[in-house]
């Protein structure tokens, strides 16, 4: 896909995030929006997947280790054709398959249940290990929050992945700089993130703009070409990206917009959509 096509998809995914969280009256828009472009790139460009055959044993896998950003994953899966976009407003409702955090038994396309921070990366490592054991060439991607890497289990998993040379594994850290209690460097700084992963025998790529598809493309290409060690992509992103009043604000980590805010958010995203249409023309 061209960058313009990817941008248009990403904007639709952002709309789905806002629609879902508004309907749920709860959820995590900030970190869903910051990762929307990487979600888009993974599911529309990078990964070998088929929405009609979501259990294909040879498919690439994705584990949303930062499971609270389920609205981002759901909107991506819906826009990719795993289930109807019209179902996104059922997010977090009684009986919905779009649970507050991803549930692999309920939701088509979810490769692993997640949400308890630090656990998803271990499951991703297990999937990558299975690929090596079975001599398959599928790849495994996992997305972590920059606050999430404060969990010790992340480093247990990283130590194992580095020691086992799992070059079919890509760990992506969404470095939007904000966690619930505030800026990550003030809560319990995980910096330097890149040096930590290097010390755990990862090939580390610093992606300085997680909303630039040229740079995203280059990062995943480099990861794919990396042999003999896992890759960590540490990407600088903007929390709440695309919705004016959510951008860079810790307040929108885990809060839903009210009706008025919803209108503003959709208006912001519609303007971006119109600009992209003009760009196309």
């Amino acid at each position, binding site marked *: 896909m061209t960058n313009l096509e990817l941008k248009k998809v990403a904007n639709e995914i952002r709309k789905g995030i806002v629609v879902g969280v508004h309907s749920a009256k709860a959820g995590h828009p900030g970190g869903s929006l910051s990762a929307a472009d990487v979600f888009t790139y993974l599911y529309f460009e990078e990964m070998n997947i088929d929405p009609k055959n979501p259990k294909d044993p040879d498919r690439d896998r994705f584990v949303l280790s930062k499971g609270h950003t389920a609205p981002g994953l759901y909107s991506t899966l819906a826009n990719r054709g795993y289930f109807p976009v019209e179902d996104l407003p059922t997010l977090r409702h009684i009986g919905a398959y779009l649970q507050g955090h991803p549930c692999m*038994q309920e939701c088509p396309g979810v490769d692993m249940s997640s949400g308890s921070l630090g656990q998803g990366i*271990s*499951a991703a490592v*297990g*999937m990558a290990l*299975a690929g090596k054991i079975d001599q398959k060439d599928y790849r495994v991607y996992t997305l972590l929050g920059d606050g999430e890497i404060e969990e010790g289990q992340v480093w*247990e998993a990283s130590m194992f992945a580095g020691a086992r040379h799992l070059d079919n594994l890509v760990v992506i850290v969404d470095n939007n700089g904000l966690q619930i209690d505030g800026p990550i460097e003030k809560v319990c700084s995980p910096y330097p993130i890149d040096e930590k992963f290097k010390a755990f025998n990862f090939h580390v790529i610093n992606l300085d703009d997680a909303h630039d598809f040229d740079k995203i493309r280059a990062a995943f290409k480099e990861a794919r070409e990396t042999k003999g060690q896992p890759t960590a992509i540490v990407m600088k992103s903007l929390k709440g990206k695309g919705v004016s009043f959510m951008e860079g604000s810790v307040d929108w980590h885990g809060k839903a917009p009210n009706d008025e805010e919803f209108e503003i958010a959709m208006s912001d995203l519609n303007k971006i959509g119109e600009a992209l249409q003009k760009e196309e023309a």
Partner: protein
Amino acid sequence: MADVKKIATRESYGNALVALAEEYPNLLVLDADLAAATKTSIFRKAYPDRHIDCGIAECNMTGIAAGLATCGKIPFISSFAMFAAGRNFEQVRNSIGYPHLNVKIGATHAGISVGEDGATHQCNEDIALMRTIPGMTIIVPSDDVEAKAAVRAAVEMDGPVYLRFGRLAVPVINDHDGYKFEVGKGVVLKEGTDVTIIATGLCVASAMEAAEKLEADGIHAEVINMHTIKPLDEDLVVKSAKKTGKVVTVEEHSVIGGLGGAVAETLSAKCPTLLKRIGVQDRFGESGPAVKLLEKFELDGAGVYKQIKEWI
């Protein structure tokens, strides 16, 4: 009893894994630097490519097993009960239990019979923890024969299974032709009319010894080997309670939340019956030779006999 063959169920675990390896090529064994103690070293020696040492990182081992299971593998994760169920509780709940993945947990060194290592390593809480996880099957084999049968049954069924093994060599009591292992079905080892003794794990042998002594006193005890704690054989518990009117549970585990807790829940709901829970009485363990500790905690045959005699 001196001539009775004794084998630790952790040893049976290691041997059972080797015996199943050819039949189940997807079976993998994961360890957290304790293969020599959990006896999965037997498997590692026979199938080095199918043994994965995760280092001293039980929580990650559990997550890796979950990931492997999503790819069709049948991983056994091995560690001491303290870490497999205790340290790991939330990983087992969220990464294995919630998605109901086909991971088997081989927990060795359960209970006070760990011995000299003392309280930090004597897990008397694992059954209680595991029981609260929806869809978890819990098996506590009483000897070598049952442990091997339990490992096979765990592989044959889909979904998470917690297997509880011990460090101490225990008498082989099930090596007879009529022995049959069925998950969720308790075994009546001795029929009786005066009191029902429901035991699990190494306490089954203690219960049988106690029942013989009671018999000599003219007390006819019924003895049930309850190898599966979850799902509990409730029909058998109720049937026997109705017959005898008195129930005793015996386990090398806290009396809170384990076999005693499970039987209490069943009886109070379905057949209120006087119940005595023999086990670890809401306290931590301590160091000492395992056999001496079982004596001190009155979980050997003499201790169980004494406690029942005083209560009845």
